[in-house]
């Protein structure tokens, strides 16, 4: 969908969102809604972060603060609405009673406005300075806001605030369980965030942002209104983050400062775009889906501390090895293999690389889980072996996309090792889901090993000097 216009793109994205909602509803598992909500929330946060961080090159460490501002604006309005007679002068009680309590879509808009204003203020205070100072100032902002909230008794202070989630949401024509309603709203927010990001990317605004990222001084000298553009970016980015936070109190049910300002939000909203790729709207989307889902799996199987460790290590690995993220790797690969059109060979190799990457990541998660299960030496040993093999898989994925000479051999070896392993796993755990997965892997492994031996593939992975001579 290279040249689709924004309204059409919005409709397509909305259709995808609607399909997602219907599929999740058809599966009808409450956990899926809770997990999906978190992943979608990360899509919004990552996309919002990327508008400032990826497009303008200004790192915001305070995503959690904007998120929390959204969440706490909901708490404030909720509390005001719960007992208007106590907080408003007599003349205003009637007005307050009719206006409050607000429904969630309105709360989201309010949160967006509040967080956007805070974004504007932060930008105004700090954007005259070099990039690093902005990053540190956002960090400072997060702590100042957290201290204010901790000391603000009205919203519960450090004790936190309870928000009772209603049973159902009555939308007029249909009664949805509340978690489904929240999930639906988050889908809508993600669609909006992604569309906005894509729109910015293709507009004059986006080009302005890119000039700031590439060389702010030169841009300013050419007459680009850098300060104004940066203020626009902080405002939009902050507003979207606040909007992502607004439904959070209803989702979590009990909001306390340390959960609203959790470091997980700050880290994830940086790591996801960085891993996905910062220059395109798909980057944060890919990163958020990938990391969000892995974290859901890791939280269930291991612990929430370990999933943050995985995110941190992935972030470090990607900024060192693949600075342009997944999107950058794929782009470079396509440019090198199929400059003019998308051919079957390039697509197949990309599919193989993504397969290796996903298996490798999954293996890391399960390897860590097994390795950390203290007390069972055999299981721990298996975990460590799985970890090593997964790292090899990750190296394969990297090598294959980078067209490294050694990668086909390494991949063949790694897959060759896994083929007998699949049989072992089937023997260890003969339940049907596991067998299905293992048989699938087996088929893919064998097909891949065969495919990598083809001549046209081998030609691609010759040393660079030979490749030049050929063409």
């Amino acid at each position, binding site marked *: 969908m290279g040249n689709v216009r924004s309204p059409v793109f919005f409709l397509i994205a909305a259709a995808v969102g609607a399909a997602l909602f219907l599929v999740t509803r058809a599966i009808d598992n409450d956990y899926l809604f809770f997990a999906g909500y978190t992943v979608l929330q990360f899509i919004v946060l990552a996309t919002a972060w990327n508008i400032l961080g990826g497009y303008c090159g200004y790192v915001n460490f305070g995503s959690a603060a904007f998120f929390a501002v959204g969440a706490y604006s909901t708490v404030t309005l909720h509390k005001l609405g719960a007992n208007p007679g106590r907080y408003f002068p007599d003349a205003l009680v009637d007005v307050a009673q009719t206006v409050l309590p607000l429904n969630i879509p309105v709360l989201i808009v309010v949160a967006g406005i509040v967080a956007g204003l805070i974004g504007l203020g932060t930008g105004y*205070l700090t954007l005259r300075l070099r990039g690093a100072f902005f990053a540190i100032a956002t960090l*400072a902002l997060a702590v100042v806001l957290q201290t204010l909230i901790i000391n603000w008794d009205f919203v519960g202070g450090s004790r936190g605030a309870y928000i009772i989630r209603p049973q159902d949401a009555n939308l007029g024509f249909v009664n949805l369980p509340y978690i489904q309603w929240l999930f639906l709203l988050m889908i809508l927010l993600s669609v909006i965030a992604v569309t906005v990001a894509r729109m910015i990317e293709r507009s004059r605004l986006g080009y302005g942002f890119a000039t700031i990222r590439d060389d702010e001084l030169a841009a300013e000298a050419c007459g680009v209104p850098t300060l104004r553009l940066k203020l626009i970016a902080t405002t939009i980015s902050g507003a979207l983050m606040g909007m992502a936070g607004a439904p959070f109190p209803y989702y979590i049910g009990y909001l306390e400062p340390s959960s609203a300002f959790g470091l997980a939000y700050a880290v994830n909203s940086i790591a996801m775009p960085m891993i996905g790729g910062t220059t395109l709207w798909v980057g944060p989307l890919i990163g958020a889906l990938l990391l969000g889902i892995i974290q859901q799996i890791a939280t269930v199987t291991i612990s929430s501390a370990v999933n943050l460790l995985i995110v*941190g290590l992935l972030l470090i690995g990607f900024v060192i090895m693949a600075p342009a993220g997944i999107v950058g790797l794929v782009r470079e690969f396509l440019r090198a293999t199929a400059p003019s059109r998308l051919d079957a060979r390039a697509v197949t190799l990309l599919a193989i690389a993504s397969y290796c990457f996903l298996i490798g990541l999954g293996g890391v998660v399960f390897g860590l889980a097994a390795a950390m299960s203290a007390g069972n030496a055999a299981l721990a040993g298996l975990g460590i072996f799985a970890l090593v093999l997964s790292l090899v898989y990750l190296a394969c994925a990297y090598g294959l996309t980078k067209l490294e000479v050694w990668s086909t051999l390494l991949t063949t070896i790694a897959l060759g090792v896994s083929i007998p392993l699949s049989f072992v796993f089937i023997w260890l755990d003969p339940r049907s889901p596991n067998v299905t997965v293992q048989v699938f892997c087996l088929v893919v492994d064998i097909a891949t090993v065969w495919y990598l031996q083809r001549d046209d593939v081998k030609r691609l992975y010759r040393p660079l000097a030979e490749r030049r001579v050929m063409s």
Partner: protein
Amino acid sequence: MDFPLELFINAIIAGLLLGGFYAAVTVGVSISFGILDIVNIAHPAFIILGSYIAYIVNQTFGLDPILTAFLVLPAFYALGASIYQVYHVSFEKRGQDALRGLAFFFGLLFVTEVMLLLVFGVDYRYVQAPYIDQTWKLGFADLPFRMLVPCVISLALLGALQLYLSRTFTGRAIMAVSQDQLALQLMAIDPIRIKRIAFAISIATAALAGAFLIVIQPVEPSVGREYIGRVFAICVLGGLQSLTGTVIAAILLGVVESLTATFYGPSWAPAVAFGFLLLTLAFRPAGLLGR
């Protein structure tokens, strides 16, 4: 209620002592961020790492935490040198130090914290040393040794560093690399080597600061986070490059924080540093002693 003079004076003394300690915490960042322009936001994580090393050695061998820190200085120096090498090859050389370098250090901060969390859990850890529970009473002023010892050693350390930077050849080269890398190259000095040495020194100070920290207060892995703001607030307020400025800013912040904690309650204290930082950045980005 009349003005509690004794409380006030004690708060100021506590603040002065705290400030001395803050100077040791900040000096590493003053070198890496102020002089080398490397935004090492992971510095507090290394400080906490230093605290935990002091804790382990203190628990198993009963060794004094500050002595331990001096013993592990070379290890931290080597750690710093290798981190700089990675940073240089992956970011500085490619000219991508701004965005990705920051993300790199953020990742380091995070990974270190989570590793400590996984190994040691969220319990507060503390150390034992003969001087920790003693207090030197001077009239109505209390000088607790657990504050006094770190403060004195920290100021001595800063003095030594200042001498090193201004008197020795390498030290002067470090100051020069921040001003003009090319000129340094023309003097036949490898600027990368000088930067590596400087960054390694900055990480080495974290070992000491970590030992001071665990002498002063019990430590758990996420304590480092509140130091990020303090460290950068002091560093910016002090005018980035000057160690004297760092000491003055550290003492100023220590006193203000101590007064805030005494008269408004400790829950407001973290905001002081960050408030300071925001105001400095907004109104006097060159720092107190800046030109």
